[in-house]
């Protein structure tokens, strides 16, 4: 893959676009949360398309597209194709864009039934039967996990892009982060169920630092072993329904969480 760096294109500032699909906007807000960095960021990148921040969209093409949200409508399935075609580098941000989000719970149910129960005029709603990650529709250059994403990791992705280097986004377990920050293991020392051993790092091990178990909001790590791990959750008090529920949250559509929850649920 060729990396287009911030300085490679005739000295022009690269154009940044931020796109929204089915999502809560929290990951886009993470970019706006970079208060101290926003001005230097705007100095290096031309913020060309970002409806959350500006109602004056640029026409593209875009050097770096950040895509939030999952694909849940036929229109969005088409729109992502155009965005991909107009983007040199496409990075998906957050659990919705990388795994389908919490709305991927529909993948286990009948959407027509939901539609009829929720909306007075279900016929107004045009939606797909599933919620799918962006990578199910177009090639993605990088996935940034988390619900929401971590501000520091987002800045790392952008600064690495500008420097023309690979971003440093480890895919190992949250346990690495607990041990590095000196947090006492909540499973070993307190018997608290914790998804840390199977969860992708990136949050800095926030929940265990407050003596809570990790609930997997960054999705699966790159090296999971559920047959050994799930008995720990059961030992620490979770029944089958609890195990299925803890795997079926924001990253329920991540293949590893999906497969294990189906195995546990028997469907």
């Amino acid at each position, binding site marked *: 893959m060729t990396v287009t760096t*911030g*300085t490679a294109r005739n000295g022009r500032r690269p154009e940044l676009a931020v796109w929204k699909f089915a999502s809560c906007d929290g990951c886009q807000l993470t970019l706006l949360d970079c208060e101290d*960095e926003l001005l*230097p*960021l705007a*100095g*290096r990148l031309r913020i060309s398309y970002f409806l959350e921040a500006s109602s004056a969209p640029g026409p593209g093409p875009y050097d770096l597209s950040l895509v939030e949200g999952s694909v849940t409508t036929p229109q969005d399935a088409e729109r992502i194709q155009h965005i991909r075609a107009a983007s040199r580098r496409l990075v998906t941000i957050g659990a919705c864009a990388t795994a389908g989000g919490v709305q991927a719970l529909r993948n286990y149910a009948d959407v027509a039934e939901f539609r009829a129960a929720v909306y007075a005029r279900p016929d107004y709603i045009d939606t797909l039967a599933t919620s799918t990650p962006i990578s199910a529709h177009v090639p993605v250059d990088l996935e940034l996990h988390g619900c929401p994403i971590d501000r520091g990791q987002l*800045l790392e992705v*952008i*600064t*690495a892009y*500008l*420097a023309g*280097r690979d971003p*440093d986004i*480890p*895919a*190992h*377990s949250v*346990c*690495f982060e607990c*041990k*590095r*920050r*000196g*947090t*006492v*293991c909540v*499973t*070993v*020392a*307190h018997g608290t169920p914790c998804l*840390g*051993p*199977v969860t992708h790092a990136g949050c800095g091990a926030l929940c265990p630092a407050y*003596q809570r178990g990790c609930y997997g909001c960054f999705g699966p790590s*790159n*090296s*999971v*072993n559920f*047959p*050994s*791990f799930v008995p*720990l959750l059961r030992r620490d008090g979770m029944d089958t329904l609890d195990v299925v529920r803890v795997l079926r949250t924001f990253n329920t559509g991540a293949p590893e969480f999906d497969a294990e929850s189906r195995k546990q649920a028997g469907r």
Partner: protein
Amino acid sequence: MTGEATTAVLGTDGMAALIRALTARGRTVIGPTVRDGAIVLAELTDGAELPYGWGVELAAGHYRVRPRADGAAFAHSAGPQSWKTYLHPQRERQWSADRAADGAWVVSEEAAPPPAYAFLGVRPCDLRAIAVQDRVLAGGPHADSRYRARRERAFLVVVECTEPGATCFCASMGTGPAADGGYDLALTEVVDAGGHRFWARAGSDEGASVLAELPHLPDDPALATGARDLVAAAAGRMGRTMPETDLQALMRETLHADRWNDVAARCLTCGNCTMACPTCFCTSAEDVTDLTGDHAERWRRWESCFDLEFSHLPGGPVRASGRSRYRQWATHKLGTWYDQFGSSGCVGCGRCIVWCPVGIDITEEAHALHTERAAGGAPGEEGR
């Protein structure tokens, strides 16, 4: 050493005075204290912060603090951290670089002076672990100058073990429970009819000088004998053993044992064992740039052989399976460490057993490999 006191009897007031004396010498005192349901290592400013009256209940994958009726401060083992947290910190900046006005890069090495630590409550196994890291990080032609500086400035107060945990096996590894040098001060805690006392010995000039500043209890020759007896008895109360065989040969001769598949089925590859291990030293480099593009930094952070990315080469990870990663860790720790550094990489502290969420026990694995080899079913390097 000078003519200052080299042995003394201290009370709990002497321990408080020791913390004050070390602090007054400009040292940051680190020692055990109870926090977040564990006996952790943290900065101490007062003797009352020591874990008086707390012990631990240990098992594979299990740790609980438990109150102790005797009020002892050092009747515990295998906490969640080790001294490498301070001597070999998890993340450290090595250099920074700034682009000057003429476009040239100016690189500056990390200049902040390392802290002068005093470690209070180093167990004999951990003292050996520090010596192991000394060989790795401060020995050879590529010594880590910042590690060496922290190490050279550190004042070590060893406390011998009288209460080994259920996961301890220092007696098997020849690393404890008695301390045999390499410390500034050594203490043995005795709680008996004579009171709550510490038998203290200086192992360096500074240790003798510090000891001379502390309030002493009356000399009691029986205390030294009693302390030695307690430590000797502890050697016989280890919760775990290693097989009585040449572990280096055992690792070499069982590389293709079935047991590695068995342990791989249990291993979460979460990396906890390597992070908790007091001798695991691996790090990776982390390059940081900022948004201006005019400033860059290199950091070093703890890494683990259980991380797929750690062995990622252009063709993918060298050790893709959990089996190959656990085997790499165990055979290095118990076997090839001898080839590389002339000693075992394992000191028998038991942390990897306790802090493994699924309770994988390196001693149990070694016994199983030993049994499989004896049954003729564990081919080594040549047996494949």
